[in-house]
């Protein structure tokens, strides 16, 4: 990693040049909600003026730039008695500006799952390698809990990360591409004062978290609580709409559909991001549904998010952005569900155990 400091006015020049010459996406305000809060999404940007640098968090994550909501995996062309399969892993180069530390952490987790397993995804790789990621730090929202998940800081997975130290950005440069781009612009090496300002900024961010989720030993608690009534309680609220997985930066589960072209001369195989809370997620051929109940489906989402699967070495894949909690119309959010699970057993401790020595 190479560190540089750039004046904000110069950074604007840098982003203007970058966004002008590349297909770029950054945070933009799309709406003001009924409580007067701005709503942001990652959308096309062509100059620094388009980018809402003071944004909080986008409603949907940046996942779909790497895992599109719908993506063609292959085409089939029928000719005479033969057929031909065509596959392309194209990923057009893009710039993504303004990602938060937790968003970049999410990409690193997707890298673990989709690139480091037994069957790396060339579709994902093409997009990931062709994306220039510029991260920016921010003060957490009251419901962000990425600090609990240890994803509020980041040291890898981006090309360039900008920490706001007042008049300047403190740049962490993590790729030769970013370093070479920046050569054209006026930057300087950090001095002591800059380093102090960076440490101070990090401390302010770290001290600003208002939400905490105790995730210690959570994988084992989830194992113990497999039959907990907590799942049914929260499942009864669930609308089965799949919104949580759609806005999530790490939910990568999908379904595959094959369909004929209308002219019957070809066919397509498409991958569609799906959600384990949708009613037919665990439905198999013949119509049997392994998870017909809301609570079961909700439980498995939490299991995947907070207990992990073998593909990612049983690591939690939740980064604590709380997009799912914000977007859930039924008010289901990781903080309350996990705390409820913990309370479930802790209440049994206080009822049964009479061992004050423990404290």
């Amino acid at each position: 990693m190479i560190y540089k400091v750039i004046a904000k006015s110069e950074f604007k020049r840098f982003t203007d040049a970058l966004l002008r010459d590349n297909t770029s996406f950054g945070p933009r305000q799309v709406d003001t909600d009924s409580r007067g809060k701005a709503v942001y999404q990652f959308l096309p940007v062509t100059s620094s003026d388009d980018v809402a640098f003071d944004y909080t968090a986008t409603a949907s994550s940046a996942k779909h730039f790497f895992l599109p909501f719908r993506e063609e995996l292959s085409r089939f062309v029928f000719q005479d008695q033969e057929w031909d399969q065509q596959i392309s892993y194209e990923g057009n180069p893009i710039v993504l500006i303004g990602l938060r530390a937790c968003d970049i952490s999410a990409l690193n987790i997707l890298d673990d799952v989709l690139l480091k397993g037994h069957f790396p995804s060339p579709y994902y790789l093409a997009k990931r390698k062709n994306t220039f990621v510029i991260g920016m730090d921010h003060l957490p929202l009251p419901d962000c809990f990425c600090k609990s998940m240890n994803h509020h800081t980041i040291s890898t997975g981006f090309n360039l990360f900008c920490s706001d130290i007042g008049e300047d950005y403190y740049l962490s440069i993590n790729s030769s591409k970013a370093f070479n781009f920046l050569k054209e612009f006026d930057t300087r090496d950090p001095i002591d004062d800059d380093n102090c300002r960076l440490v101070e900024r990090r401390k302010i961010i770290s001290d600003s978290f208002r939400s905490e989720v105790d995730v210690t030993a959570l994988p084992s608690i989830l194992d113990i609580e497999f039959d907990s009534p907590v799942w049914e309680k929260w499942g009864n609220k669930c609308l089965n709409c799949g919104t949580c997985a759609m806005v999530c930066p790490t939910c990568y589960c999908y379904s595959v559909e094959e369909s004929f072209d209308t002219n019957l001369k070809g066919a397509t195989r498409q991958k569609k991001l799906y959600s384990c809370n949708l009613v037919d997620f665990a439905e198999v051929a013949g119509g049997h549904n392994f998870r017909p109940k809301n609570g079961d489906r909700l439980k498995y989402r939490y299991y995947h998010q907070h207990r992990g699967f073998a593909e990612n070495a049983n690591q939690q894949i939740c980064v604590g952005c709380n997009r799912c909690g914000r977007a859930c119309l039924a008010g289901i959010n990781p903080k309350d569900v996990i705390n409820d699970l913990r309370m479930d057993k802790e209440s049994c401790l206080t009822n049964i155990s009479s061992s004050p020595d423990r404290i």
Partner: protein
Amino acid sequence: MKHWGFTFEKLKIASFDFTCCEGCQLQLANRESTLIDFLELLDIRNFRELSSEQFDDYDIALIEGSISRQDEVERLQAIRRQAKTLIAFGTCACFGGVNSLKNKFPLNESVAEVYPGMQVETMAVRKISDLVKVDLSIPGCPVNKEEVERLMVNLATGSQVTLPKHPVCFECKAQLNTCLFELGEICLGPITRGGCNAVCTTGKTPCLGCRGPSEEINMPAFVELVKERELSLDDLQEKIAFYNAFEGFSNHEA
């Protein structure tokens, strides 16, 4: 048509309109980019919007509209006797549709309001499945031509013919739309069957549920959400009743 050892027969199809605006049928002639390919799949035996030729030897009958007169009942039953596959085509056929709003008022009042001083033969509006067996329902006001194309291709090729089971929200999120509840509106997206690509909500118009309930809707939780956000339960009732698509759910707690 012959492909890779399989022979596909053209679908011998007919389309009939009842109490409706004929907008769903018109969708069949929409989406020009694939229209010629689509028509290649079909052997149209009877469809007054596309052809003046009329034959009675169809296998598949598309039924558009709801039923609101006795002669419609008889005509529908005759079509049922001929058709091997009868498809309720569009929201009016599937659920009664907007026409069902008439059922909220005494018949004579409706007639006096719309056709003052005229003798009109009419009866309470019913959906197709109230009268005959329906083999397949394709909801939508209007139907989504892309979905109709897919279903017709699947019928022609013997593939599985299914509708999406997830609600509209799922597709709305893929459009990066701001949730209309966040903008202070009641939207039926969370309880309505997807497959429309969230076309209304993408245009910032709340979903009125034209495609009917998605599988396993959670109506108590949905009503609770409207109450918690202090939105109007009257507005909720009005939206749920709009297409008559939530019969059996509409009086739930609200």
